[in-house]
């Protein structure tokens, strides 16, 4: 930990940029990774795991789009199609999007941002990774046995009484993944509460951590309900206890209520970390203090709390009373407010900032664009009268892909590029990164914008075939998917290449003022020898560009806390 790589900058009093011994090479051997308690290594293992899942989910997506390229059946039958779209949804939601930002990026970054040596419960952290592995294994088993055709929602009574596929192994997999998510959330909640460094009051907490805090609340309070719901579903499927079975006096819509009581907050478990990442990147790349810090921070928590009150809008057309639909519709509109507050504050941060279009920033700007479209089209679905028409059409599919892919996936890419130098110690090619980002953006819009149009014209979701009227939109969508795939492939190539031939990353390549950039890239095993003193995380004047280290270094004399 004392051997320093770049001598010149060290001599002139600049902070250490690289260390010979860092968390990646401080010990070796397979068990030093598999049994590690180091949050950074666990984060990297998660990153590998979710990337593989994303690739798998992407293959299913490709299958769907190729099948839908022309009317009539191309290369699968309808039953296979049902399995393919179900597995696409289930793998993407449970194995990729939900753990994506919190477990992979959050694990690496969260303790560093707090100047802590680790999360509060390192063993629990490792066990939640293995719960993820166990859940993924059940999914793999599902793939190689009879697959799954219920849709990712497992609606009863189809899933419990009629489906001839591996519902039990898939639900049990999701059950385990749920507990993985709960333990991650619990760990982060306690870490943020108890491990903050001296000087970091709640109002000096970086916005990424506010977002992770809101996410943790939802993970803790919503996910157990999914757990018990899936357990009941397993009991229903194996033993036929009858609680969701109308033939035995049970109520199948009760399953939908239980499921969405989790799964609507889960939508925010997916998007809140994305907003958290974007809040950091927008401020850093505008070289400007974030606008409306408290508004963004509190909106994260209010989204977390409101998310528990809107689940009923998924059941507007399934036997909900008129009064209930009215109330759920009204609350659904209110949740647009904190989301909009965030968007306006990001825009105000950009205003008169000195914006540099680095790869993370490009993804963040694309996020704002796509999330806004996704969010506003959500209002069409929250309105009772239009929802009756748009329910179960491609409009819904396009809406949630704009939020989940355009929102969460693009923010995940933004965060991945933003913290990549910190995680790996390597810089990727900016040019290639930007090109990949633009290709992905164009491809995404081409893939999903036509789905709004065909949805509003009546193309139902989850159908294996369609009328020739919709052919043009489906073909545009398929071409868009392929373009998006090319963008993501280029992104992957760029990042992997950087590991082998990228330049060494400086400690602070982007000029952020949060604490994780104060330790060398990649960080040493224990992160910080002493907890650093926290100040305003958005005081960008505190760091300046240094030609010699090709990164930002603290301005001498600006280390003291700054009031704002």
């Amino acid at each position: 930990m004392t051997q320093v790589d770049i001598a010149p900058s060290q001599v002139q009093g600049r902070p250490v940029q690289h260390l010979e011994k860092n968390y990646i090479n401080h010990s070796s051997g397979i068990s030093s990774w598999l049994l590690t308690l180091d949050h950074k290594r666990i984060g990297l293992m998660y990153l590998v795991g979710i990337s593989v899942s994303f690739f798998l989910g992407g293959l299913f997506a490709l299958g769907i789009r190729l099948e839908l390229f022309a009317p009539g059946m191309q290369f699968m039958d309808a039953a296979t199609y049902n399995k393919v779209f179900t597995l696409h949804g289930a793998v993407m939601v449970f194995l990729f999007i939900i753990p994506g930002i919190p477990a992979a990026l959050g694990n690496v970054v969260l303790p560093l941002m707090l100047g802590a040596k680790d999360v509060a419960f390192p063993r629990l952290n490792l066990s939640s990774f293995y719960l993820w592995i166990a859940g993924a294994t059940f999914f793999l088993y599902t793939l190689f046995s009879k697959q799954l055709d219920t849709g990712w929602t497992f609606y009863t009574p189809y899933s419990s009484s009629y489906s001839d596929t591996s519902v039990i192994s898939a639900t049990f997999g999701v059950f385990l993944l749920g507990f993985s998510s709960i333990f991650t959330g619990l760990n982060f909640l306690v870490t943020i509460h108890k491990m903050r460094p001296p000087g970091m009051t709640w109002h000096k907490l970086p916005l990424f951590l506010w977002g992770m805090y809101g996410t943790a609340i939802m993970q803790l309070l919503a996910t157990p309900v999914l757990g018990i719901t899936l357990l009941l579903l397993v009991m229903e499927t194996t033993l036929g206890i009858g609680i969701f079975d109308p033939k035995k006096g049970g109520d199948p819509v009760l399953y939908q209520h239980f499921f969405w009581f989790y799964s609507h907050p889960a939508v925010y478990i997916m998007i809140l970390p994305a907003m958290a990442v974007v809040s950091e990147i927008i401020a850093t790349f505008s070289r400007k203090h974030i606008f409306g810090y408290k508004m963004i921070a509190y909106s994260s928590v209010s989204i977390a709390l409101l998310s528990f009150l809107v689940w009923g809008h998924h059941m507007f057309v399934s036997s909900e009373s008129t009064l209930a639909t009215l109330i759920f519709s009204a609350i659904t509109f209110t949740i647009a407010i904190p989301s909009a507050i965030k968007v306006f504050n990001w825009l105000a941060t950009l205003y008169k900032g000195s914006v540099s279009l680095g790869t993370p920033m490009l993804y963040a700007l694309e996020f704002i664009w796509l999330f806004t479209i996704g969010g506003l089209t959500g209002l069409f679905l929250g309105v009772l009268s239009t929802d009756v028409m748009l329910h179960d059409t491609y409009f819904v599919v396009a809406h949630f892909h704009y939020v989940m892919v355009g929102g969460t996936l693009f923010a995940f890419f933004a965060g991945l590029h933003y913290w990549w130098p910190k995680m790996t110690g390597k810089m990727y090619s900016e040019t290639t990164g930007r090109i990949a980002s633009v290709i992905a953006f164009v491809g995404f819009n081409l893939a999903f914008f036509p789905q709004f149009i065909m949805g509003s014209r009546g193309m139902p979701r989850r159908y294996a075939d369609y009328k020739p009227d919709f052919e043009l939109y489906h073909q545009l969508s398929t071409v868009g998917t392929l373009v998006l795939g090319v963008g993501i492939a280029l992104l992957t190539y760029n990042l992997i290449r950087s590991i082998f031939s990228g330049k060494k990353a400086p400690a602070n390549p982007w000029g952020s003022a949060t604490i994780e950039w104060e330790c060398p890239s990649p960080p040493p095993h224990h992160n910080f020898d002493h907890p650093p003193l926290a100040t305003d995380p958005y005081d960008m004047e505190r760091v300046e560009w240094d030609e010699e280290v090709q990164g930002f270094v603290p301005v001498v004399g600006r280390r003291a806390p700054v009031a704002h």
Partner: protein
Amino acid sequence: MSDDHGHGDKPFLAHHFEDEDHQFDSGKLGIWAFLVTEVLFFSGLFCAYAIYRAMHPEVFTYAARSLDTMLGAINTGVLIFSSLTAAWAVRNAQLGQKKMLVANLAITILCAFGFMGIKYKEYSHKFHLGLYPGNNYAPVEGAFGDHVTKAEEVGFRLEQESDEIEGEHASAELADMNESSEHAGAANEEAHGHGAVKWDDPNMDPETKSQLKVFFGIYYCMTGLHGIHVVIGILLLMWLLTRAIRGHFTPTYYGPIDYAALYWHLVDLIWIYLFPLLYLIN
């Protein structure tokens, strides 16, 4: 792994905490957060119970008669007593009373085994009567006890001459239902005469009859999940017992005992709700 997670003179203080208090407070917040998730985990079952009971109160009123209130009450007492010893163990750990700590942990574990033993007796008795959960549900004669005498009260109907239509199809029974309700008074008398209303009486409202099994589904899910929590508690307490015997706990390091006791209290609390909800209907 262990070499970089210790503080030398304080073997159980993890490297990323400043001191024992910091570690204890973090653990305490963690266990409380975990207990909140546990409450929400069970809440789904309680919600399912409430909804099914609201939809079919007669099913609950009738089926709950098969549960043995005395055994349930004994188990409630056993668990409440074990909560006392668990809380006492925390105090022992805080004061560094090793012998008492070991004794109290051991008593808590014994109570937990006692609870599971009684639960085993209850379950096996039910299985013996054919009261299995779900599709295997096939109650034998007398499964709902012979003390049931008031047919009206439990909301199902009896034909005046029950023997006559024995063996007929449910559809035929359904057709007779309107008629049969008029004779409920007479049926009541009939029931008194036989000393019991049998669960498999062919004249029982077929819908209610077919739904009785859902009560057992809920019963086994709720008590089963609670039982799993008791078993986890036993394993946890046994681990702590071995650590206590080895003298790991001191007045500055007793967090694990405190957390396990909190968990144990929650398991106890859930049973305190389960007992009246399942056993004390009526």
